[in-house]
Structure formats: C-alpha cells, structure tokens
C-alpha cells in the first residue's frame, strides 16, 4: 500500500498453516519469518515429530534455524545449546549443568491434510474447544489398493510473499462479489456469505466473462464453489465445474497465509483434483499443476490491486456490495483478547447478495465490449 496507516501490530489468534508437512521432514531445521519474529521448524530424529521453536536462542541469540538437528533436539550453531521440541534446554555440552528454567517458546503444532500448522495466541493460551482445522474426509488418502490408487492428485503447493498489505485484504475478498468480475473476469450469478463462530463461508456460482480473452485454466468453465475460512487464515475451497459431457471436474483449493509483519504476509495455495474417469494419475497431477498456475494468475491479479491500494477501515459501500462490515466484525474476534470476543462477532450471520442488478449491468457491458471488438479480448 502506498501509505499504510493504523496497521495493527497485533497478529491474529488462530491456527496458521506453514506449508506442507513434507517440506520440513528432511532432517534439517527450517527458518520461517512470521508473527514479527523468526521460527525454527525441525523434525526430531527419534520421535519423528515436527516441532516449532522460537528461532533465536535464549542464550546469546544464535539462530537455531541455522543449527543442526541432534537426536530430538535442535542445536544452536553459536554454542551448541540443545533445545527439545517441548522448549526445554536439554543439554549444554560444555557446561556442568543446564540452568534452572532454561526454556524457550515451543509453539503448539498440528498436522492435518498433509500440512503443518502452528497455533498463535498473543495471550499464550491453547486453542479453545472446537477451534481446529477440519480433516478433508471426502479424500481417501489411504485406499486399500495402495497410494497410487488414490482418486485425487497429490498437493501442489506454492507460496508468495506479499509486501505492503495487511492480510485482511486477502480475507476481505470472500465478501467482495464485484471484484470477481473486474479483477478475476468471472460473473457471479449466486453469492452468499455465512459467518458463525470461527468459520466464515462463501457460496458462489459463476460463469466466465464472455468478453474476456484471458487464458486461465478452468476460466472458460462455469463453476460452483463452497469455500470457508476456518479461523483467520486457512480457507478450504471446494470447486465443481461441469465439463459438458455429463462429468464434473472436482478441485480442492487451500488458500492460506501467515503474517510476517504488520503489513506483509506469506500467501500459500495448494490444489488437488479428483481424477476424471478414464484418466491416469499422471494426467490428474498435470491437471492440478495447470490449475495451480491458473490460481497464480488470479492471486497475481489480487496482489497487483493490493500493492497500489490503501487500507480502508471504514469503506463507503453501495447496495451492490457484500457484507464487508459484518466480515470485519467476524474477523476482529481473532485480534482481541479471548475475554473481549463479543457475541456479535461469532453469532451466525447470513447474507445473500442480490446478483440480479449487477448481472444486468455486466451483461450490457460485456455485450458492448463484444460489439466493439468483435472478438473476446481485453475488455
């Protein structure tokens, strides 16, 4: 943003995905810059579990992410202090004994859907009841015929650092029907939001803009999408696209992020597609890769907007807009102390956007563009 202002320095309470779990299982520590600090992710050699510690050693500030995994501990490159996944200093080889209360911060972790999550809470409390990442139980990852028999492609996974924007810009998108037309070249024909508890959902049906020559995988197809944020930063989006021959392409998209600073975040997205009848596992992997490239085009369209916009806390809305204020009210629950979460932040709220008036205006605009250019192209 050109003039970031009033950007809150506080980071959201909630589960944050750090990436695919397998990215962190190579026996080496990994550095993640997040929540205004640095984290070190490592897998214990003996316990096989993924652990997340504050990267900076409590001793003299060495960066543990540049250290070495030794057994189930992470050894600092500066003086070889050994830190366990529980945050306790397990050994200091050159000292007679470990100081009392030698502890660093061990972050609460979760592995789900092949991804690694950390729990962030400025108050230091554990996750509340029911606050978790749902398992994608419609995907059978352990079919009895072996993993190669899976009906679904493996995860694609990509990440991009977005600088100069608060991650609220990304979350705002789920109530922003009109931007799908202007920024992503699709025409929503149905658009409903539901917020309840820590979940915010978006139910959409859309068709492609017929005046757009945009080459985007799947962009030439109508789609139905059920998407929901589980907490402040992790969205699961299920997408169905009729292929015209009676079959339907089925995709699952994970769209998630973690904050780096108050005005930067790492956006990550992963795609899996269901193998179409009569196609090979390899073809499904190719389809997922193409879909991921299309997602990158869509996210780049958003990033181009964020890079040049400013933060608006009190937007001026029209009757064609979605429930931005109610979404912000829902989102605020993650930025206040747990005791300050008010019922109106979590009470169920439903909003069905009137897509009729917008659809008529967009139809006229598309017809005019086609009449002028003759063929689909740049609107």
């Amino acid at each position, binding site marked *: 943003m050109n003039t970031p202002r009033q950007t809150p320095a506080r980071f959201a309470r909630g589960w944050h995905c750090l990436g695919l779990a397998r990215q962190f299982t190579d026996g080496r520590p990994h550095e993640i810059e997040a929540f205004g600090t640095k984290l070190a992710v490592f897998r214990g050699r003996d316990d096989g579990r993924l652990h997340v510690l504050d990267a900076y050693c409590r001793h003299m500030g060495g960066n543990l992410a540049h250290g070495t995994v030794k057994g189930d501990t992470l050894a600092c490159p500066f003086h070889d202090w050994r830190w366990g996944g529980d945050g306790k200093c397990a050994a200091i080889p050159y000292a007679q004994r470990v100081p009392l209360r030698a502890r660093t911060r061990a972050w609460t972790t979760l592995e789900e859907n092949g991804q690694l999550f950390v729990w962030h809470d400025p108050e230091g409390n554990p996750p509340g009841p029911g606050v978790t990442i749902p398992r994608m139980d419609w995907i059978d990852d352990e079919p009895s015929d072996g993993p190669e028999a899976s009906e679904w492609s493996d995860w694609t996974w990509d990440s991009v650092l977005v600088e100069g924007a608060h991650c609220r810009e990304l979350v705002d998108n789920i109530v922003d029907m009109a931007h799908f037309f202007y920024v992503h070249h699709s025409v929503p024909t149905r658009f409903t939001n*539901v917020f*309840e508890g820590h*979940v*915010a*959902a978006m139910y959409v049906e859309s068709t492609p803009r017929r005046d757009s020559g945009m080459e985007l995988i799947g962009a030439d197809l109508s789609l139905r999408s059920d998407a929901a944020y589980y907490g402040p930063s992790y969205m699961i989006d299920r997408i169905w696209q009729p292929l015209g021959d009676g079959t339907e392409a089925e995709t699952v998209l994970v769209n998630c992020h973690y904050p780096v600073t108050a005005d930067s975040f790492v956006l990550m997205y992963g795609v899996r597609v269901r193998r179409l009848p009569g196609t090979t596992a390899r073809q499904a992997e190719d389809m997922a890769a193409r879909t991921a490239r299309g997602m990158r085009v869509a996210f780049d369209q958003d990033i181009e907007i964020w890079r040049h916009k400013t933060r608006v806390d009190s937007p001026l809305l029209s009757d064609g807009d979605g429930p931005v204020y109610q979404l912000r009210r829902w989102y605020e629950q993650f930025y206040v102390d747990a005791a300050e979460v008010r019922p109106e932040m979590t009470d169920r709220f*439903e909003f069905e956007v009137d897509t009729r008036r917008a659809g008529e205006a967009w139809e006229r605009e598309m017809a005019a563009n086609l009449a002028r250019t003759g063929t689909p192209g740049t609107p």
Partner: protein
Amino acid sequence: MRPVTCEECGTGVLVEKRSLPHTSVQWTGPTDRCPQLAGGGARIEGCTRLRASIEREVREGRLTVAHDD
C-alpha cells in the same frame, strides 16, 4: 432489521431484505435449536424452514422489501 420467528423451531432472528433476491439474517443466539443448522455451523448455507418463514413474512406484508421492483 425486522424480527422473524421460524415456524419450525420458534427461533427468532433479525431479517433485512433490500430487494427480493437479497436476504440478510442476523442470529442473536446459538443455532442449536435449529434442526437443520445445529452442529453444521457456517458450512450449512441456510435453513430451508427459516427461509420459508421469511418468504411468508414477505408475502403477507409483515416484512417489507426496500426495493421490490
């Protein structure tokens, strides 16, 4: 927003309709009395009985639509 009571479970909600296709529903308590929503949360788009109750309110003139063209 105007209060509407669901004819199925008796839960009261607040409803606004800016136009016939638009509907905004604000719950002011838990959804656990609703047989369709209980346990499903935001992953369930809405309760069909509540929707029918809202449509009846509109039909019978108790819930006005801001722009009913």
